[in-house]
């Protein structure tokens, strides 16, 4: 039997990881006791924060890959092509609202978007979906309403997210073909997929196939979740959060501080409203709004996942455009209603 291992390129990070662990162990044994005690304390904090992010995010990643598996097995390409609008604006609007049907957050939406692209979804629909779905979905709308009430925070979070997602969806419509923005061209996309599709497959068989597809995708994306969570945990362990928040006063800096915090915390959009609630009183409406709008679109773990799925240039725009628009919106709100 012929054996294919496509992941050989990725065993290099593994070697680095082992080297790093060995280096860490050596350092640990030669430094003075007080330093190693300090390191040990830091390590414990790192582990707690890292596992906190991981344990909280895993269910959401599983939800996303499960949705992706079900799409792969149960939705046909013809059907998606038939219902997708051809004109740009309706396509982007549809994409921005798709999250109401697929309730996924920022970890889950990335593999699902790629899967939908593979099934022939227009570029602008997919990009609008990618950016909007982590907020425009029943779970997040509910949790934001629970945290802030049905007031202007909820309205502006949803509104601003829709505006950004639709705008960027339209910008991306310049790309006619999804394979232009995906890292691997569509026709040879190395997506987890069980190739043959026997006719008259029983429902149970289909489900089982969907689960296998989800499993492969969970392994692919889980890697980036883990890298992202460890980066976020390292930053949180060594960079004093107080200094970030101390810097963050004034109409401009407060927005920048909250957006940086959104990226560093890397918490899931389904729960970030409760976290943002803790900043009411210390931070202005505009800066908390930008935290709630920008965080679900871009954070450390989603950036790593973007890079796995998309080419560098699209990723650049996927990070930069939401950054600029939410920054601008946050500052505007700070000046209009401080």
């Amino acid at each position, binding site marked *: 039997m012929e*054996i294919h291992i496509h992941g050989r390129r990725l065993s290099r990070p593994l070697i680095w990881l082992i080297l790093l662990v060995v280096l860490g162990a050596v350092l640990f044994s030669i430094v003075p006791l007080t330093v190693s005690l300090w390191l040990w304390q830091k390590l414990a*904090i790192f582990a707690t924060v890292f596992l906190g992010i991981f344990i909280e995010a895993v269910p959401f990643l599983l939800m996303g890959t499960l949705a992706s598996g079900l799409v792969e097995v149960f939705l046909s390409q013809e059907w998606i092509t038939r219902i997708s609008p051809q004109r740009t604006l309706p396509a982007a609007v549809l994409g921005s609202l798709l999250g109401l049907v697929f309730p996924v957050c920022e970890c889950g939406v990335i593999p699902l978007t790629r899967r939908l692209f593979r099934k022939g979804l227009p570029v602008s629909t997919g990009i609008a979906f990618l950016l909007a779905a982590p907020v425009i979905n029943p779970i997040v709308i509910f949790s934001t309403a629970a945290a802030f009430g049905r007031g202007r925070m909820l309205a502006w979070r949803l509104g601003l997210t829709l505006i950004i997602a639709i705008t960027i969806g339209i910008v991306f419509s310049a790309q006619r073909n999804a394979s232009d923005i995906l890292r691997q061209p569509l026709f040879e996309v190395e997506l987890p997929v069980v*190739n043959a599709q026997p006719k008259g497959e029983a429902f149970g068989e289909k489900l089982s196939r969907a689960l296998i597809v989800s499993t492969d995708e969970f392994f692919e994306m889980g890697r980036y979740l883990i890298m992202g969570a460890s980066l976020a945990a390292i930053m949180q362990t060594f960079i004093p*959060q107080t200094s970030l928040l101390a810097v963050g006063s004034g109409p401009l800096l407060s927005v920048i501080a909250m957006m940086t915090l959104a990226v560093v915390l890397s918490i899931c959009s389904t729960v970030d409203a*409760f976290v943002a609630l*803790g900043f009411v009183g210390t931070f202005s409406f505009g800066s908390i709004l930008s935290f709630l709008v920008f965080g679900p679109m871009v954070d450390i773990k989603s950036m790593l996942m973007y890079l796995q799925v998309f080419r560098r240039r699209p990723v650049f725009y996927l990070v930069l455009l939401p950054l600029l628009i939410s920054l601008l919106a946050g500052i505007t709100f700070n000046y209009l209603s401080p």
Partner: protein
Amino acid sequence: MSNKLYRSLQAFVLLTIALFLAVKLMSGKLDLYINLRFAPLTVFAIIVLALMIYALVRRPKDKFHQDEHHDHQHEHIHSMSFSALVFLLIPILIGVLIPARPLDAAAASTRGVNVSAPIVSSASQTLSFESAADQRNVLDWIRIFKSGTDVTTYLGETANVIGFVYKDQRLAENQFLVSRFVITCCAADGFAIGIVVNWDQASTLDENTWVNVKGAVKSYQLEDQPVPLIEADSVEIVEEPPQPYLFP
């Protein structure tokens, strides 16, 4: 690596993750990492992982092979990657090798301790006011002082709170903070809060020691904010409570 072996290894990794989550859940250690409000999600994850494992191990023996209109002689697992298998074991390794420890004074030193927690109205807020003075925890007291209500009725009441000792630079020699970490959804968003304690033997206390502080509540100005202060009658060293965090 054959497909069969790869699928078995995947099943093994998923089983390890599921068991890790299940053990943390059953042993009551999950709340070191996340707010238990989100525990149902962990249960959901365990169920999905179990389904995936089931699908992996009961796979019809690659019967797709014989599919005649396909020229593939075997199922082609495109994403087969040994490093992905190892990567997903990293969290488990970290969880097993590094002993689980709640966020403590060492963590508070990078994150800072809030003496006036920016916590606004939530469902449990009213409980802070209604509960008896000796039932209120660190968070309840801070909430009362933050709420903007007239605190004079609360002054002189006897507080009875548990927390870890944190020595803050803003404080005098005879003062320390009795602190707790507050977790909104997971350890990543944890922040420490603390009440200033006046106690003439404060310098004898080591940072991070868990103490039970009893004494009269006063109002105190710190960084231009009215915050609670406990004039300690007694400071007793206690065991770390089974639930070191507070959940708003």
